[in-house]
């Protein structure tokens, strides 16, 4: 229970003859996904390209992506977790009543057909979007789909992958992991990394008013977070590094304009499948890069006295035997 069974996008391009998009609208949100990676490409294993692949879209409404799908499954809002759990039971041959299946908005015939196709596939891939991961159930919805993909490997090859949002979210996640052991939701207040989503994750810290300063880079929480979080950002000293004026920069005490990454500043971005891509700037910018600003802030901090009195070290929360 737990973990993730996944692959790089090139594997999908080469091999995936069965693709499910769940709670995502790639036609509008990831417009190159179909053509570059998933359904349009021909490969040695799938020489007829689109004809050799089956695409299923699962969503609560008919989006533009439905046109590209072979099968569109419209489910009732808030029934994702239930449907995935039904699939987990059915693939193992456990009985589920027809009326229970119908609650999700799909008939037994449709669900049976979906399972038959999943098991028949040579290489199945599930992509899931914010329609799954940010609706009621949140991380458990994602966990459910990851679990289903892992369990499908008892029958055939199956993988799953989240459709990450804009910006270099994956890169931040990857680097936090190698430096601290955790992807996000980390506190350093005891002098070493500690992890507890819900306690240390940004949105929760802001909503509860647990921080007395904020340093924001490559994000615009002022546009996406709940109002109490935004109110707290306005109350405390907030520093924003951003090439643009944003909702957050408007409420910030300090806004440092930086060169846009990938356009005027070099670096590395991690693709949603965690492959690092070098960014080669096309333009010059009069503004410093985020990296340079952070480096200079760091140097200035290094000249200040250590945050604890001389001779004192932070103490670990005692480990339990």
């Amino acid at each position: 229970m737990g973990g993730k069974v996944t692959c790089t996008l090139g594997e999908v391009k080469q091999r995936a003859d069965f693709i499910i998009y769940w709670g995502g609208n790639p036609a509008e949100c990831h417009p190159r996904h179909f053509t570059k990676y998933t359904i349009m490409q021909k490969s040695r294993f799938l020489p007829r390209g689109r004809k050799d692949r089956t695409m299923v879209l699962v969503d609560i409404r008919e989006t533009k992506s439905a046109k590209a799908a072979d099968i569109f499954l419209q489910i009732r809002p808030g029934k994702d977790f239930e449907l995935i759990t039904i699939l987990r039971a059915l693939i193992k041959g456990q009985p589920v009543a027809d009326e229970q299946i119908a609650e999700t908005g799909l008939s037994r015939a449709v669900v049976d057909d979906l399972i038959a196709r999943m098991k028949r596939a040579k290489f199945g891939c599930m992509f899931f979007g914010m329609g799954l991961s940010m609706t009621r159930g949140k991380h458990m919805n994602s966990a459910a789909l990851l679990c289903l993909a892992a369990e499908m490997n008892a029958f055939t090859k199956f993988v799953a992958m989240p459709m990450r949002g804009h910006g270099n979210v994956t890169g931040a996640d990857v680097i936090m992991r190698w430096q601290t052991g955790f992807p996000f939701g980390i506190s350093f207040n005891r002098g070493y990394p500690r992890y507890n989503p819900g306690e240390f994750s940004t949105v929760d810290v802001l909503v509860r008013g647990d921080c007395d300063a904020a340093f924001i880079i490559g994000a615009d929480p002022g546009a996406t977070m709940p109002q109490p979080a935004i109110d707290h950002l306005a109350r405390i000293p907030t520093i924003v590094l951003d090439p643009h004026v944003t909702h957050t920069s408007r409420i910030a005490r300090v806004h440092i304009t930086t060169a846009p990454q990938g356009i005027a500043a070099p670096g590395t971005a991690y693709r949603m499948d965690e492959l690092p891509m070098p960014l080669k700037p096309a333009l010059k910018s009069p503004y410093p890069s985020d990296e340079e600003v952070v480096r200079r802030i760091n140097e200035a901090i290094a000249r200040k006295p250590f945050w604890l009195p001389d001779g004192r070290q932070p103490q670990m929360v005692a480990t339990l035997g």
Partner: protein
Amino acid sequence: MPITFHLKRPPTVPLEAEVLSPDVVGSLTNSEIRSLTVYHGKRQLPLSEFFDVEGEQSDDLVFHGALNKVRWVGRAMSRGSITVHGDVGMHLGAHMSGGRIEVHGNASDWVGGEMKKGLIHVHGNAGGQVGAAYRGSNIGMKDGVILVDGSAGLEVGMRMRRGTIVIGGPARDFVGLQMKGGTIVLLSGAEIRTGAWMNRGTIISLQPLQLMPTFACSGVQNPVFVNLYSRFLQSWGIHLPFAASEGVYRQYRGDLAVSAKGEILIWQPA
């Protein structure tokens, strides 16, 4: 004589105070207690910056004030008692292995997280993850009793293995998520996905529940153990009906997605 702690000023950022446990303060003098280190954000400060402390060398601790931002009270305690008059912050009694905690107010998330033994009684509401496993861990509460008179948040009893949790008010989603054993009693029901992915263990609800599709009704009964449980819970004024004349429990088995060894009992009055 218990040691009393009066909160002098509320912390502006979370105050991590895992030293507030009978195991730490029980043998200390008053001045030693006052100079114990707590973490106000990243700063180390003596406990006396935040609390007036009266008494010394006692396993019984009494707190007064709004401790909403004070975290880890009673962490890993193995003996004695803690009484809080007011609200208390996250991780109350997490990892505790003995003793009792009583809160006359509300508690935040992770009450009794991964606790091993002992008793926690919250007279107000609790947050999410009551008696739950911390992220990534396989096992939540291993034994002991958690009583919440009011409501509770998400994921009550997640991955618990043994012990008892009683929630008096309504609970939110995912009660007993991936439960491996133990008992959860819901006096006022819960929102959705109760018992999701449970492997073993029992959830008893006195109110109707909207169940996962992967639970199957396996009959009605009045199991003897409910009677035993009711007697066990009586001292806290909790009554579980069990007489056939009063009604029956409808039994559901699941979660079929993982096994069919868990059970949910829903009371149906006659």
